[in-house]
């Protein structure tokens, strides 16, 4: 049944080479932990991506219940965590996964740094990786405000005041992030939009560039 459907599509669109290209791609010996166990350090990039997928999925499900509104935000988070079945788990995945992404990304960066993988011809991929790093930090910063509890409120206040200390343009950055004069209703909707639309969009584009470049250039050679 599944085979027939697949063949029908394959005859028309020739989709086999698309996944064959990925499936038959050989893992070089020096990055395969089955050959040298120390090669597990090459897994951190993939682990970062895996957790990012978990973050995107759990985030999508959280928005089924969450509202970015100063009256209802905290109540809706409280409701989805304590009243909805598996709410503790789904929010837990998003909450702890956020920290785990940063940890994995940091380890991945260390591996790239200490194996010298950032050197020519892969400098562009290092730069894109750094952009991904800052997008992830932005996602962490904007996501922190969304539960609208005291910790979220003051973390945002402090964060925006740090941004405001930038010479010349600082006060404009602060106004842009606040969306008004205080950390309030407009800040919350702004951070929500940035957190679920703008930054994930940029992240997916950057990840695509990251992966296309590593496929094109191949993984760096052994030390």
């Amino acid at each position, binding site marked *: 049944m599944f085979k027939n459907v697949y063949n029908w599509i394959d005859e028309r669109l020739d989709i086999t080479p698309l996944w064959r290209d990925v499936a038959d791609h050989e893992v070089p010996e020096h990055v395969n932990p089955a050959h040298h166990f120390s090669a597990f350090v090459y897994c951190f990039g993939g682990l970062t991506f895996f957790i990012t997928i978990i973050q995107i999925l759990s985030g999508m*499900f959280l928005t089924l219940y969450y509202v970015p509104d100063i009256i*209802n935000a905290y*109540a*809706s988070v409280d409701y989805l965590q304590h009243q909805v*079945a598996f709410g503790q788990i789904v929010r837990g995945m998003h909450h702890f996964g956020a920290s785990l992404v940063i940890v994995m990304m940091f380890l991945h960066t260390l591996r790239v740094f200490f194996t010298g993988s950032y050197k020519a011809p892969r400098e562009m991929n290092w730069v894109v990786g750094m952009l991904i790093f800052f997008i992830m930090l932005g996602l962490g910063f904007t996501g922190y405000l969304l539960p609208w509890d005291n910790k979220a409120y003051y973390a945002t206040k402090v964060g925006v005041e740090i941004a405001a200390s930038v010479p010349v343009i600082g006060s404009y950055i602060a106004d842009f992030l606040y969306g008004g004069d205080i950390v309030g209703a407009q800040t919350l909707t702004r951070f929500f939009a940035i957190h679920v639309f703008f930054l994930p969009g940029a992240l997916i584009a950057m990840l695509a560039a990251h992966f296309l470049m590593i496929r094109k250039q191949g993984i760096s050679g052994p030390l």
Partner: protein
Amino acid sequence: MSNHEQHETAHRPVQRKEMSRRQFLSYTLGGTTAFMMGGAVLPMVRFAVDPLLTKKGEGNLVKVVEESRVTAEPQEFKFKIHQIDGWYESEPELVAWISRGNDGKVFALSPVCKHLGCTIFWNTKGHNEYDCPCHDARYSKDGKNLAVANSPLDEYEVVVDNGIVYLGPLVKNTRS
């Protein structure tokens, strides 16, 4: 020659029904992947379908009006119910058209038109009928659909106790 052939058959490997190493590996890898994906995705799916599996709130009876004020002519009465909508609790006001039927029984009709959900009113066009302003649906005093709509107006469950009319959840029209 025939001897040689017999020799060949004797040494043919026994055909056993077992899977190849490759098959075994793909089953274990596929199974592990499915287990891990399931562990991640199932909580999210259960989380998403929670509204389907939670028990629906039961309607309580709400005190609306003294029985003595109910007349043969339908009158509009407003009453408040307590509503819990996720994290939001409110006391929305509902409307019932209450009258006494020809059989002397008190009954209460919902003002929601069964055509497309607009709000109907009694006797706005002077025909002693319920009229809907949206598409001219008409209903009799008992809520029977006379034009446009396909079914009669819903009724509130009515309990008369000690001269007081209490209304409960909506039920199908019992009078037409």
